């Protein structure tokens, strides 16, 4: 394998892991409520920005990161309590529009509360690139990839081996039946918003040393993460990871071998083609099951 190709693959892997982390957050809330939470990108932004400002007060990184995740989780819970829960029973479209409104509100608040400048977090374990067969990767990318894998494993365990996780899955399959067997749908929604806010914040902290963070980073990350979630199959954890990696690799390979100006066109073109052939996404449930 040429060093050039290897570099493209490593780049795609780095970017793809970032998309995958964001995509996972979309999937959790979708599982619980069939709602696509367009404020997911804002959770990512809040995680990164809160960590930056906590570090500025002198806290060590692990503590700052922990507090930022807690704060973002709180934002997620408050969003669910104050906005989403009030309109339960309304159609999914109403809920989705509420999340769009929430994302605009959160972005505006962040611009006021913090500032509109870009900020960088220090890399967790140095900036010295690691050479692999003529190509290089920064240690932070390994953090992103590694944590993504850990998170996927943890989520798999949560959804398949804990009562709360199973309750979420049950609710996603049939809300009424879940309610009838005694699952509190309200609790499930609350947990899923908290969980996906925490996950978003974690993503925001991990990627801030690579991509930097600012009040408006949520827009692009939210969009790409959403695309990755759709490509992999909404609601599927492994699908989100696969979709993210596929999107990242498509982008870097088309930038490297075809044209960097049209890399997004190529990546999204291929994505559309996949969705035409497999409407549920790469690993999505068949839509017939949804009825």
């Amino acid at each position, binding site marked *: 394998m040429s060093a050039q190709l290897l570099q493209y693959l490593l780049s795609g892997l780095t970017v793809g892991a970032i998309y995958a982390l964001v995509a996972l957050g979309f999937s959790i809330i979708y599982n619980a409520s069939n709602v696509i939470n367009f404020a997911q990108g804002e959770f990512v932004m809040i995680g990164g920005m809160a960590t930056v400002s906590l570090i500025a007060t002198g806290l060590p990184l692990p503590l700052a990161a922990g507090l930022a995740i807690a704060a973002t989780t709180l934002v997620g819970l408050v969003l669910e309590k104050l906005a989403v829960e009030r309109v339960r029973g309304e159609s999914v479209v109403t809920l989705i529009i509420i999340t769009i409104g929430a994302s605009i509100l959160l972005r505006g608040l962040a611009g006021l509360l913090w500032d509109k400048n*870009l900020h960088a977090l220090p890399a967790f374990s140095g900036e010295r690139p690691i050479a692999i067969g003529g190509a290089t990767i920064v240690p932070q990318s390994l953090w992103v990839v590694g944590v993504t894998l850990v998170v996927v494993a943890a989520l798999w365990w949560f959804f398949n081996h804990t009562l709360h996780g199973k309750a979420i899955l049950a609710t996603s399959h049939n809300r009424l039946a879940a309610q009838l067997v005694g699952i509190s749908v309200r609790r499930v929604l609350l947990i899923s918003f908290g969980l996906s806010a925490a996950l978003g914040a974690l993503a925001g902290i991990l990627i801030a040393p690579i991509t930097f963070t600012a009040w408006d980073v949520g827009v692009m990350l939210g969009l790409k993460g959403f695309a990755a979630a759709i490509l992999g199959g909404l609601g599927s954890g492994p699908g989100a990871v696969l979709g993210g990696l596929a999107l990242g690799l498509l982008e870097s390979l088309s*930038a490297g071998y075809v044209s960097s100006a049209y890399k997004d066109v190529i990546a999204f073109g291929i994505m559309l083609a996949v969705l035409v052939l497999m409407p549920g996404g790469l690993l999505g449930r068949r839509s017939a099951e949804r009825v």
Partner: protein
Amino acid sequence: MNLRSGLSTFARFASIATIAFAAHAAAPIKIGSFLSVTGPAAFLGDPEQKTLELYVDKINAAGGVLGRKLELIAYDSGGNAEKARTFVKRLIEEDKVDAIVGGSTTGETMAVIPLIEQAQIPFISLAGAIDIVEPVKKWVFKTPATDRMACEKIFSDMRTRGISKIGLISGDGGFDKSMRAQCIKVAPKYGIEILADEAYASKDTDMTPQLTKMRQNAQIQAVLNCGFGQAPAIVTKNFRQIGMTVPLYQSHGVASKVYIQLAGGAADGVRLPAAALLVAEAMPANDPQKKVVEGYKHDFESRYHQDVSTFGGHAYDGLYLVADAMKKAGSTNKAEVRNAIESTRGWMGIDGEFNMSPTDHMGLDLSAFRMLEIKNGDWTLVH
């Protein structure tokens, strides 16, 4: 109507007329402005507005212009060209301003030019693109140096280092695309050959594929990044990550401390053109621009407690060009003020030395830019 009430009516009219006349004698000179104080271009409009407020106060404290106070009427266009048009209409028709200094972005400026030309009112734009003053429009001037000049500054520095074959990498934002086009246009004039022309989306998070492609081309002697925002910092980091050793040039679009903070150690050795304001401290004492920029920096930072930016400097130059022209013309007559602005010669501002002429409504030359190199996380002047 009896005589008495008729007289009193007359007296009332007379007194109103007197008040109106007195008010007119001391009536302030109205400077209109429309700036992107909020929205995506807030980083431009915010320091511009603060600068205008600061120096209108200063000029008034020193007795005003032509014995009259200045009054600033500023609207927030939020970076929206349609809003900018509405506000300029209001400035001209309702506020009846004497001159307009404003327009943070090129889009807003271009949108209002027809209104300005029609109303025949002196207008100094604070936006970057060369299209604003090329071709020359009778009533339109601008203070910021153009991206074409930045390209020329970079290319002439490359030539002195013996570089003639370069790779270009640009973002997809308005600034990035405009500068890329200008650089490609002037490259032949400096004998620069562009061997690679790569692109990225401004919010992309990794540019190693584009840079790897350039690394494979052994003929490339330097890389120029026409970029804005966070992407150039990522380009800089990726550039070092994949071990490229040729010189890296950035544009004046990232000439701020934020870029150095974001790119960290990777920024060492990067060269870029920038306004004198950034390197006020590093300038030699005999530099004629040193006093002007240091004065502005001190005024701005002591009032607002935030770092000075070159964008605010554009507003400083715009306001003083108008104020000086009014003094020179001895009136606020719009045609005379316009002529006075056009005949500005050897005036030293924040953006450089202005030499306006009927064919040049910006009046700056390449000396407006200083070539900087980043060393140990700080700017140094390249001589």
